[in-house]
């Protein structure tokens, strides 16, 4: 029998790996994919806890997260393309015009 903490632990590990990808990588594409990993980690927790509590809300939340993830990926990649056209780079450290 798998205890809920096991799922939560797995969720935390997936999330943490995703975080590492976001903070440690320079490639925007990989950063975006790491974000997906993070979201999956969260979804694991939602689904597991939802099912242990017998409440559909967990599943609904996971569903919502997926929707957001899809939207995020679409917009993020569109941004990436637009950016690449202008700057010819996918290196996040070269994008520092967001300051005054």
């Amino acid at each position, binding site marked *: 029998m798998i205890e*809920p*903490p*096991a799922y*939560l*632990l*797995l*969720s*935390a*590990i*997936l*999330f*943490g*790996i*995703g*975080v*590492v990808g976001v*903070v*440690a990588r*320079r*490639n925007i*594409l*990989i950063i*975006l*994919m*790491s974000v*997906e*990993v993070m979201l*999956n980690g969260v*979804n*694991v927790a939602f*689904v*597991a806890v*939802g*099912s242990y*509590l*017998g*409440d*559909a*809300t967990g*599943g*609904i939340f*996971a*569903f919502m997260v*997926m*929707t957001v993830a*899809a*939207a995020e*990926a*679409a*917009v993020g990649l*569109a941004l*990436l*393309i*637009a950016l*690449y*056209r202008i700057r010819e*780079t*996918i290196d*996040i*450290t070269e994008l520092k015009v967001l300051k005054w």
Partner: protein
Amino acid sequence: MEALFFILFGAIAVGGAVMVVTRRHPMVSALYLILTLFAVAALFVLRHAHFLAAIQVIIYAGAVVVLFIFVIMLINVPESRLPVERATIVRVAGVIAAGLLILESAVLARRFAMPKAPVSGVGTVEAVGRALFTDYLLAFEVTSVLLLAAVIGAIALSNKKL
């Protein structure tokens, strides 16, 4: 039995995730991402969330990752121009902080008490559908607006005249 599958798919998911963040070429990462997504879908099945497992595969693996791969191929950055990773203080600190976060969460998760009687069937198509079209109808509809906005945003952003 469940424990066995959990350990198996959990290990695949973690392993895939590690590969996603560590591969130099995004195409390789994308392929490992698919692996992770499938493993997570399997975990969903373990928790009787069949519907979610299905859309995890269909939408995530089928649509989102394909979109990634599509973009990777579209912009087709030559190997030589991929960013060169360097360890900076912020990055190292970031990795350490991420480790801390996992640790903290793990400790927290261990303290997490939960009724031991998992109710099966809350993740079935019927259950999710019922919830989705009754209690969460508004949220569901708003989701569609969000997606619409994302579509419009994506189109607007990829317009050449930006």
